[in-house]
């Protein structure tokens, strides 16, 4: 594992690491090093900030190792690895990750020693926990990646039992696809939209804002989820082009699309319901939920309309974005947008099967 993951990593990043070494040890004297380490070991916030910086390095190592694992050259080694028990797999991968982490581990130990001298035990513990996490979280991730590369490893007993009993509903196909194969874009989009919705709802009370503020927040949150709409369209037309041969009427097709989009944005709806600031106004809440869903459906249809042309998409996207925000500022009610987006989506869906 060290040969497969750690050595190629050091070889590929040799120049960068030497540069960091020269900067760190070429300009500073020993006393200055100790002073910096003492400062970090004594200040928890600064230590957390430093760890955030280290995380950049760790993210880079994880992406690099993932690329190595999925390389066809390493397929043979991975097939050998999965023959061993899970404990041994974890041990080998952990050692490889530890080797990759070594430059930061050494420096963190240096800070920890200063912390011990000054008896900042909480910060020493923090460094220890951090070093454990940055070994085991990547290892769990690598094991998942290996599962994806080796098909035989990718069938769980529970999954097999479910598959024998039931067939997966059509509405779940796309959400499961995103969870299995695109978890990072899914997670990022959820974090971003969740952050925007919560921030908007929290800010609502800080000034004399009205419903327009909430509408803009929800619109932006769902608009930024357009990556999901894009992936959904790709899934339907490229991964499963045979779906275009399925004899479904306009309403059936639209319903299926809406259900899939609803399921993939379920966390956003839960956040909206949980943090909803206008207590008791149920009809308004319902309108906002439909507003989010219709926005995403409109984006999905817009992408089909312009035939995946990304240049056109960004131009159209931006125009729609600005136009809708201006209209909201002019107090155009949310239900008007819902009607508009639904009508547009139905119209495109109607043309879709007829190649108009």
């Amino acid at each position, binding site marked *: 594992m060290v040969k497969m993951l750690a050595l190629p990593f050091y070889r590929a990043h040799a120049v960068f690491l030497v540069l960091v070494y020269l900067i760190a040890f070429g300009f500073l004297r020993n006393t200055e090093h100790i002073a910096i380490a003492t400062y970090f070991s004594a200040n928890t916030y600064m230590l957390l900030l430093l760890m955030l910086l280290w995380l950049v390095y760790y993210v880079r190592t994880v992406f690099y190792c993932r690329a190595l694992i999925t390389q066809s050259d390493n397929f043979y080694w991975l097939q050998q690895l999965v023959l061993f028990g899970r404990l041994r797999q974890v041990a080998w991968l952990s050692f490889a990750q530890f080797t990759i982490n070594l430059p930061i581990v050494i420096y963190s130990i240096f800070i920890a020693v200063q912390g011990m001298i000054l008896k900042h035990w909480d910060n020493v513990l923090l460094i220890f926990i951090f070093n454990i996490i940055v070994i085991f979280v990547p290892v769990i991730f690598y094991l998942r990646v290996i599962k994806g590369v080796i098909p035989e490893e990718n069938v769980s007993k529970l999954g097999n039992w479910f598959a024998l009993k039931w067939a997966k509903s059509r509405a779940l196909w796309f959400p499961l696809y995103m969870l299995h194969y695109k978890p990072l874009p899914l997670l990022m989009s959820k974090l971003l939209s969740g952050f925007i919705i919560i921030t908007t709802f929290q800010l609502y009370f800080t000034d004399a804002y009205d419903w327009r503020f909430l509408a803009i927040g929800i619109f932006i949150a769902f608009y930024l989820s357009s990556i999901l709409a894009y992936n959904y369209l790709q899934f339907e037309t490229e991964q499963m082009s045979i779906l275009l041969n399925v*004899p479904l009427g306009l309403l059936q097709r639209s319903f299926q699309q809406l259900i899939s989009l609803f399921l993939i944005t379920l966390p956003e709806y839960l956040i909206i319901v949980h943090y909803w600031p206008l207590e008791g106004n149920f009809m308004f809440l319902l309108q906002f939920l439909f507003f989010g869903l219709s926005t995403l459906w409109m984006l999905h249809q817009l992408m089909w309309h312009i035939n995946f042309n990304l240049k056109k998409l960004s131009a159209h996207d931006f125009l729609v974005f600005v136009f809708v925000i201006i209209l909201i500022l002019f107090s155009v009610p949310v239900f008007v947008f819902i009607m508009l987006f639904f009508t547009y989506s139905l119209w495109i869906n109607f043309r879709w099967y007829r190649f108009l």
Partner: protein
Amino acid sequence: MLNIQSYQKSYGHHLVLEIKNLQLSHGIYWIKGENGSGKSTLFKSIAGILSFSGSISFASFNLKKQPVAFRKLVNYTEAEPQFPLHLSLKDLIHYMAKAKKASKLQQEELIETFAVQHYMHQPFRTYSSGMLKKSGLLLAFLGFAQLILLDEPFITIDQNAMMNLTQLIIDYHKNGSLFLVASHVENKEMQLPFSQKFLIKDAQMHEED
């Protein structure tokens, strides 16, 4: 009867295929042509997967005017079927059978004919190319399709499956289905009673003797 009028398909400025007028009555038709000649493009157009200019109709239903009724009658399988790796054949059968109104009995018969019962519940990522091919073929026979488009149906499948497939085509044909078969395999292996052969060359479709 399959009726194709003023059909044209281009990718960018490159004309792939042009059919001025083609009418095919009940039968089994062999479509030949070099790689990239436009066989799959034609099949995908008829199946409603790929846009085109012109008109395609079957049994009085026009693909552009009655898209749902048309698709009920037309089934298609790709030369190298690709399915989302997290789904299983069972998931697709379940969904397609509902959409194409296939009976439980027909599903069971097809599962047995293609001998997929042992792995149909497993995800596609565990399938070999032959298993994927059989999956695509099985789905192409589901429902009451009157026009079945088979793109290279005899490649990558085992001898037993080949024999079963030939018999299935003959049986469905007897029950009124029209077949378009694109294949590079010699008819010695397929043993199909072709009504006519066509060759696609230089973006045109020619009748072969």
